[in-house]
């Protein structure tokens, strides 16, 4: 067991924990800043907040480099630092209590609530998202999610990580990750279904009417 850990460490670790600080930082920053900025934007929704989060993440990562043992991928480690920093930042700013989402609140109560009233029929998701109003509605729905659900949805459905990886980042077991993910998806679905969004060919008209 001991030998296996020893032999696994050098290949898993791609950042040296010693050496010239600037060189170590530059390598970490160069290899991961685009990914962390994308993640930060998805979490925060605002450019300035996302840039603040990138700064916090790399600063904390640099300070914690010596404690990084290489038993996780560098990207997973950075995601964890960023997710924690984001949860801390938002709690501080909003002072919001942690809200739990119950499955019961997502059970449709009328026929109209079962479908999305969205201009997505016959379109690929990429084509549908060319509709700026739809893109904005999706963005707002994700931002409206309570923090702990939003982080899981962003990691799993937007960053494309596995439930196991999300669990490692969030300190949760897979079952808890899947439970939060399901509620988060149902929340976003309901937010989208509650909005009437115009056809892609008439986005400006739809916005004026909204």
């Amino acid at each position, binding site marked *: 067991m001991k030998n296996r850990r020893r032999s696994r460490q050098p290949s898993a670790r791609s950042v040296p924990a010693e050496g010239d*600080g600037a060189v170590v*930082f*530059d390598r970490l920053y160069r290899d991961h800043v685009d990914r962390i900025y994308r993640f930060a934007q998805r979490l925060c929704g605002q450019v300035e907040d996302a840039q603040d989060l990138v700064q916090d993440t790399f*600063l904390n990562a640099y300070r914690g480099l010596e404690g990084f043992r290489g038993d996780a991928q560098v990207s997973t480690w950075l995601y964890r630092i960023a997710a924690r920093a984001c949860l801390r930042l938002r709690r501080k700013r909003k002072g919001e209590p942690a809200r739990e989402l119950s499955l019961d609140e997502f059970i449709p109560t009328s026929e109209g609530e*079962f479908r999305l009233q969205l201009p997505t029929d016959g379109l690929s998701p990429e084509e549908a998202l060319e509709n700026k109003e739809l893109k904005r509605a*999706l963005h707002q729905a994700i931002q409206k999610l309570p923090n702990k659900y939003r982080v899981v949805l962003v990691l799993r459905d937007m960053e494309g990580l596995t439930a196991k990886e999300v669990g490692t980042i969030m300190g949760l077991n897979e079952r808890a990750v899947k439970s939060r993910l399901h509620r988060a*998806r149902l929340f976003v679905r309901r937010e*989208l279904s509650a909005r009437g969004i115009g056809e892609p060919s008439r986005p400006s008209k739809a916005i004026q009417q909204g």
Partner: protein
Amino acid sequence: MSTRMTSAHSHHGHSKAQCIKVLRRLSAYLDDELSVSICKEIRKHMGACPNCEVFVTSLRQTISLCRCADVPSLSPAAKARLRREILRAIRSH
């Protein structure tokens, strides 16, 4: 509320409880995490319940939209500025 829900399902000839059971498993169903027999059960329910069929389509669309929603990347100038600011913060400690 329960009256409205009941009326939304009553004409499909099954109970609300069956729909709720399906709803609870939809993410696992869409992520292909369920056994063949449970998937078959869910598909059978959806065949008999147009509302749940529509619901699963809408959840699938929601997930696809999330997966495809991109965000603007960091400009080279912003990347360089952030790097300078982080290094300054590192050196000031």
